[in-house]
């Protein structure tokens, strides 16, 4: 092993040892937080905390909840744009987040019961009610759904006569599929596509949450298929085709509030149920268009919708 002799290398080595020693001390001496995963924060107290995932539709839904609850005099704090479910689910479980807008099927297969085969709304809800940890519950789901999908461009669909995910079998080996980073490991992501349809893709490209990066990758041909959420307004404007899912790899995904039981009272519950009762897929799509394509404010669109459906805002 070469022994450093020049002054410069000696200095670098000395500094390096100092840094390493310091870091080693820090590593040994850390007691860390009480939870085992560093990305899980500890619970906080106070007002109702409404969180959202890191994509616009979810922030919009959270804003609707926040506005409606504030109108009923509930003290609300928001913590939007947290991350994907893998990040915020533990926060709801511990009560650091009180309410978050969820999608029942994805919630079930990602965080609650990864082996679940529930497919319809009724099956998914029943499974959730049975298996959610006791600190949490789902309220009454809405009719509105926003599902993950395997989506291709119109041109690609026409060229290979694709209408359903099962049609991809001969081509998957040559296709790059894209989606949010978590699509690689989620049960209804690559794993589920392999299990339910026998598809093995050439590679996976981690992009974003059905946002401009995913859409650009699809239309530019960087990926041949992508997980595009079904209420993404660009499906219409970019002429994309969401392939049919006959084997229900993606279960029903109704919008439903996931709540930390001890953080909500009857006012909160009834307000949120009233919202869910009036939310439809068409309404959600229209709001997504306003927020994503027209760049309207989340709060403006939320208030507008509440007024339109006759709820206090």
């Amino acid at each position, binding site marked *: 092993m070469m022994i450093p002799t020049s002054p410069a290398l000696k200095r670098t080595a000395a500094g390096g040892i100092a840094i390493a020693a310091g870091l080693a001390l820090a590593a040994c001496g850390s007691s860390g937080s009480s939870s085992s995963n*560093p*990305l899980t924060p500890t619970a906080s107290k106070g007002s109702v905390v409404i969180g959202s995932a890191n994509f616009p539709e979810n922030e919009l839904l959270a804003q609707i909840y926040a506005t409606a609850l504030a109108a009923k005099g509930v003290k609300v704090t928001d913590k939007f744009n947290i*991350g*994907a479910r893998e990040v915020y689910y*533990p926060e709801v479980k511990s009560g650091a987040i009180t309410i978050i807008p969820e999608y029942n099927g994805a919630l079930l297969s990602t965080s609650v019961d990864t082996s679940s085969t529930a497919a319809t709304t009724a099956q998914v809800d029943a499974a959730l009610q049975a298996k959610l940890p006791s600190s949490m519950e789902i309220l009454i789901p809405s009719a509105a759904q926003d599902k993950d999908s395997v989506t291709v461009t119109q041109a690609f669909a026409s060229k290979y006569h694709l209408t359903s995910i099962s049609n991809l079998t001969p081509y998957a080996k040559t296709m790059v599929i894209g989606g949010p980073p978590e699509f*690689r490991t989620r049960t209804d992501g690559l794993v589920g596509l392999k299990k339910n349809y026998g598809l093995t893709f050439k590679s996976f490209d981690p992009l974003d949450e059905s946002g*401009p*990066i995913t859409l650009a*990758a699809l239309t530019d041909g960087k990926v041949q298929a992508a997980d595009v959420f079904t209420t993404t307004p660009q499906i219409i404007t970019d002429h994309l085709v969401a392939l049919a899912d006959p084997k229900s790899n993606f279960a029903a995904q109704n919008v439903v509030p996931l709540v930390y039981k001890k953080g909500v009272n009857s006012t909160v519950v009834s307000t949120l149920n009233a919202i869910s009762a009036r939310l439809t897929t068409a309404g959600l799509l229209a709001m997504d268009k306003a927020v994503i394509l027209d760049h309207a404010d989340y709060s403006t669109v939320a208030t507008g919708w509440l007024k339109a459906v006759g709820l206090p805002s």
Partner: protein
Amino acid sequence: MSFFSYAWDWLSQSQQWQGANGIPTRLVQHLVYTGLSLLIATLIALPLGVIIGHAGRGGSAVVSLANVWRSIPTLGLLVLMVIILAFSIATWLVPLVVLAIPPILVNAYEGVIGVDRDLKDAARGMGMTPRQVLLKVEIPVALPLILLGLRTAAIFVVATATIAAEIGLGGLGRYIIDGLATNNYGEVAGGAVLVVALALAVQVSFVGIRRLVVPAGLRQGAAQT
């Protein structure tokens, strides 16, 4: 569990070292982003800095420019590029080059302008043309600072390329971004360790390059590196 134990657990899994998402692949991507940007930034900024220094003026403008440049938020520039240009080489090349230019430019300028006037006079006295003075005296004497600028730019580009994973690019930053997305702290920690190791390797390489390229007499004279 500490940061290092998470990182070690993840790094010691053999599957992390194979395939399209494996460490060697991501490392090569990171090196490509770094190498190409550095090359282009050097081709632009080094001659420019040397020429301005040789001309002897424009110093305060150079420093003011560097300060403005230093304030440009990396994440913002990357995001803006991907929104405007979608997927093209320019999406990552432009921000990395733009942000690497100031250290190279300012240091080249300072290096050349700091050359002792006596040295330049002596060279001219020996009959050298201005061009020869530049090539045989000013640039060699400025070499330590020029290399410092290149080294700073290199470290800086390695760091910025890490963030580029946020806009769907590859490279070692992929592990940090994907790990955060899937609540897999092992991946996050492993990625961080890899990126730091690369940055330090770059640092050390430049110390080595300096030994090779800068004449011993100048090395002694230079302040700190």
